[in-house]
C-alpha cells in the first residue's frame, strides 16, 4: 500500500485564525495515488491548505506624513509610517521603507506614489532586495514593475498606481521597497491618497 507523503505539522487546520499571524507554515499538499487509503494527516493537510488560502499573508502600509522630499535627478525610497493591515508581520516601524517577507512564496505587489509638486514627470519602480535565506545571497537587488506619471502644467499633484506579481520567488527575509526618480526636486503628498505599498501572497511554489 502506498503511503501518504504528508508529514509536516499542521498549525492551522481547525479554524480560521485572526488577522495577526506571523510567518505562516506552508501547507503540504498530499499525494493520493489510486488504491491509497487517505490518512487523517492527508485530510488535515488539505484542510490546512484551505485555511492557508483563506488567511494568506497580506500587508498594506502608507505614508501618513506626506512631507518627504525627493531629490532632483536621483531615486528616493518611500517611507511608510502607518500600517493598514499586516497579517504576517511584514512591516516593522524600525525599517519603515520596506515590507519584509516572513512566509516564502510568490507575491503580488501594489504600490502608489503621490507627488504634490506640479509639472513634473515621476518614474517609479519596486525593488526586491534578497535577505540571508535567499539562495542568491544577501543584497541582490532586482528592480521591477515600473510606473510613470506626468503632472501637467495645470496640476498640483500626480499619482502613480502600479500592480503586478513580483518576478521572483521570495524567501523569508527578502524585502520589497518602492523608489521614485524625479527630474526635479519634489515633495510627497497626502492629497486624495497617500503613497502606499501592499503585498499579497499568491502562490506557494
Amino acid at each position, binding site marked *: 500500500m502506498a503511503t501518504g507523503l504528508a508529514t509536516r505539522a499542521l498549525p492551522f*487546520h*481547525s*479554524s*480560521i485564525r*485572526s*488577522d495577526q499571524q506571523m510567518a505562516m507554515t506552508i501547507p503540504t499538499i498530499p499525494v493520493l495515488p489510486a488504491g491509497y487509503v487517505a490518512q*487523517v494527516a492527508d*485530510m*488535515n493537510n*488539505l*484542510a490546512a491548505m*484551505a*485555511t492557508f*488560502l*483563506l*488567511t*494568506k499573508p*497580506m500587508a*498594506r502600509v*502608507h505614508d501618513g506624513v506626506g512631507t518627504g522630499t525627493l531629490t532632483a535627478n536621483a531615486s528616493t525610497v518611500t517611507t511608510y509610517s502607518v500600517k*493598514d*493591515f499586516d*497579517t504576517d508581520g511584514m512591516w516593522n516601524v524600525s525599517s519603515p521603507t520596506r515590507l519584509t517577507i516572513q512566509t516564502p512564496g510568490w507575491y503580488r505587489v*501594489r504600490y*502608489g506614489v*503621490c507627488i504634490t509638486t506640479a509639472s513634473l514627470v515621476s518614474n517609479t519602480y519596486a525593488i526586491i532586495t534578497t535577505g540571508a535565506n535567499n539562495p542568491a545571497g544577501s543584497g541582490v537587488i532586482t528592480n521591477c514593475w515600473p510606473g510613470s*506619471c*506626468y*503632472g*501637467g*502644467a*495645470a*496640476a498640483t*499633484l*500626480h*499619482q*502613480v*498606481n*502600479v*500592480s503586478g506579481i513580483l518576478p521572483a520567488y521570495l524567501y523569508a527575509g527578502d524585502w520589497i521597497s518602492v523608489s521614485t526618480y524625479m527630474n526635479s526636486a519634489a515633495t510627497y503628498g497626502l492629497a*486624495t*491618497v497617500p503613497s*502606499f505599498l*501592499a503585498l*499579497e501572497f499568491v502562490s506557494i511554489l
Partner: protein
Amino acid sequence: MATIPTVPAFVANDTSITKLQQLAYCASFLSVGTVTPMWHFHHSATQGPLTASTWTAVVYDTNDLDSDGVWTTNGKVTFVTQGYYATEAAVQAECTATTFFLEASFWWYAGANNPNYVAGTQKIYGAQGTASYAATGADACVCINEICPVVCYPGDYVNVYVWANQAVTLNTNTPSGAMQGRFVPNFTGMFIRTGS
C-alpha cells in the same frame, strides 16, 4: 450571499461526509467564479460632460459578472460577504477643448453592519492622476488597482470617482482614431481573504 467556508478538522477513522463537503466548499469558494465573491462591470454609455474640478461617481451601467449580488445600476458596489477585497478600475476621459488633468480613486464607505467604523466613514484608496498631453482633442486614461485597506462588511460600499480640472466626458469610444472601442471604463473586484 456567499458563506465563508468552515475548514474541517479530521480525526482518525473519520467518516463524516459533512467534513468532506466542507472541504469541497472551501475549494469552490476559493476557485469557482460563481461562488467566490467577484464582479466585473463596464460603462457602455457616454457620461458627462462632468463638472470641472468636482469629484463625480462613475456610472458602471452594465453588469457583466456579479457572483454575490453587489451591483447597483449606478455602478456602486455594496458588499455582501465579509472580507478583504481587491478592486480594479479603468476610467477614460476626453476633452476636446484643452489639455486636462485626470484623477480617479476608490471611495469606500462603512455601512451599518461594520463593527470597526461608524456608518458613513469614508476611506479613499487607489488613486492615480495624470495629465493629457495634446492641447486639443485630448484624452487620458487612468487605471487604479488596490486592496481596500479595511475589511469590508455587508452593507459597506465602494464607488469609483473621477476628477478633472476641465469638463471632460467619459466615453467608451473615444478617442475616435485607432483606439476607438478599445478603451472601456471597467470596474472589477474580488474577495481575496477572510478578515474581521
